[in-house]
């Protein structure tokens, strides 16, 4: 659905996007991840024909962004970083304007406006001026604008910024419901966002592609050792924290034990295993055998956050297995 090849965008002095290539299949939700200034917005602007590429090409549904911009724009819904709304217009009025702008006939426009108002849960403010709305509502009006013409491809630049947790969950649900028929690219620097709603992740840093893979693969690939959170109950200074720590360190396969916390009668440790060792059963047995009350034992997966930091840090050093794999793609 989306095909980007050797895309480079150079501003006056800086290279914002440097030779990026990727493809997105129809119906996928892809997360576009990177620190601030990585080139996420620039790439999206090229895809939406807002900016022309300096080098390379980008195509949406087989139409090149430079050669057939109108065809591309018909098939794309775009929510920029700050929602492109006119504060002096009413919500329904604005959506009708945006819809007609995108080629919806006046006969259908009412129905479409009602549909997106409902989908984005903004029906209750349909008559209000956009300038009077809160950031979260404005964001959702922006999203409604992006989906009003039922585009094949949705390009969303940080769709959940400025929303409260409940609204974020609603947007996630909305995106998931849209996923089947629409191809969605969303950019974010909130990693849990990607873990929740995306099937694939494209990580870029300083304009370069760092990794492109599924969320599960990325976390697995970087998780060599197991990390376990362990909590022991104490009463009257018994057992002694250092005793527990010593005992845990002696368990076979443990590489490191860090005490995290000791309050409210609970001692919390984080235990890391050696490469490829299962340590949880042994840990539990040891704690129980010593006569202590084991209150919690759970694996701590490597979060996408850590994956991301590892990848982007490796990128800065200039050599990592992840990078060479990404280069192959």
């Amino acid at each position, binding site marked *: 659905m989306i095909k980007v090849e050797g895309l480079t965008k150079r501003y006056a002095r800086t290279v914002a996007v440097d030779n990026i290539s990727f493809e997105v299949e129809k119906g996928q939700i892809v997360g576009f991840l990177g620190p601030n200034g990585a080139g996420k917005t620039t790439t999206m602007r090229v895809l939406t024909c*807002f900016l022309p590429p300096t080098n390379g090409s980008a195509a949406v549904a087989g139409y090149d962004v430079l050669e057939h911009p109108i065809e591309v*724009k018909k098939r*794309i819904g775009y929510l920029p970083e700050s929602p*492109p709304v*006119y504060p002096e217009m009413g919500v329904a009025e604005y959506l009708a*304007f945006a819809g007609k702008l995108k080629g919806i006939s006046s006969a259908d426009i009412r129905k479409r406006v009602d549909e997106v108002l409902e989908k984005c849960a903004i029906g209750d403010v349909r008559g209000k001026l956009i300038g009077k709305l809160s950031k979260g509502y404005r964001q959702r009006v922006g999203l409604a604008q992006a989906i009003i013409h039922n585009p094949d491809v949705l390009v969303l630049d940080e769709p959940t910024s400025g929303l409260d947790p409940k609204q974020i969950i609603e947007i996630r649900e909305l995106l998931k419901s849209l996923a089947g028929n629409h191809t969605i690219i969303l950019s974010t620097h909130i990693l849990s966002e990607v873990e929740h709603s995306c099937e694939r992740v494209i990580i870029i840093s300083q304009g370069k592609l760092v990794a492109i893979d599924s969320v599960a693969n990325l976390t697995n690939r970087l998780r060599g050792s197991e990390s376990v959170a362990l909590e022991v109950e104490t009463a009257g200074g018994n057992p002694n924290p250092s005793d527990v720590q010593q005992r845990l360190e002696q368990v076979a396969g443990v590489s490191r034990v860090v005490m995290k916390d000791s309050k409210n009668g609970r001692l919390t440790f984080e235990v890391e295993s050696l490469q490829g060792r299962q340590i949880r059963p042994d840990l539990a047995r040891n704690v129980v055998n010593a006569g202590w009350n084991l209150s919690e034992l759970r694996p701590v997966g490597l979060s996408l956050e850590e994956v991301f930091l590892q990848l982007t840090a490796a990128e800065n050093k200039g050599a990592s297995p992840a990078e060479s794999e990404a280069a192959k793609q």
Partner: protein
Amino acid sequence: MKLVFLICKKEFNSYFTSPIAYLLMAFFGLIFGFGLYTATRDVVRMGFQAQMMGQAQPVNLNDQIIRPLLGFASTVALFLIPMITMRLIAEEKKTGTIELLLTSPVKDVQILLGKWLGAMLLYLCILGMSAIDIGMLFAWGKPDWRPVLVAYLGLILQGGCLLAIGEFISTLTKNQIIAGGVTFFVCLLLWLLSWFTAFDSSASAQVVNYLSIVTHFDNFAKGVLDSKDVIFYLSMIFFALFITSRSMESLRWRS
């Protein structure tokens, strides 16, 4: 064409959702009314003086009131135009709504034509305020309506020209104040040029005079409809809109 009207309508409406349209209309109506008052006062006073010397002549409304009045209106318009055009594109760039326009399946030409037409409509509404005063002259006098119509046509053409230039300047910046200031400066310059070259007959002055948007209005004010002037204005409008479209396209490459 449908998209042009869509953008035109949106643009026109947004003038009226802010105080700017009402302010400009009130301002123009007030100034024009004051102009009518002074013009008639002078005519009446001169009439009395002539009568006392026994040389009374009938008042020619067209020559003595309407013509100077509409000439005055064309000058006032120079000061209003920047306030109409300064927001056209600069505001969209500032608030980011330009991203909606430029990523919708709309051609740049449709955007800038729509915006220009929207500004034109507001300008017509502002000019409409003067119809109240002119209407009074028709109600109580019998001026010839044909030169009045020609003068209005001149006002509309001159306004269209300046609005197109203002729109071009608005594409150059995202700061409305700068867009308005520069447009005002250009209008002022055009006005001053027509003053400076009025009594100068050197070749360079003639050229400057010919290019000045304001001097071409003089014929219209006299009630003379000369195709030379109409073509001048139309080609200036076309040229200004053309460089606006070039500038819009370069927005993509520059930003």
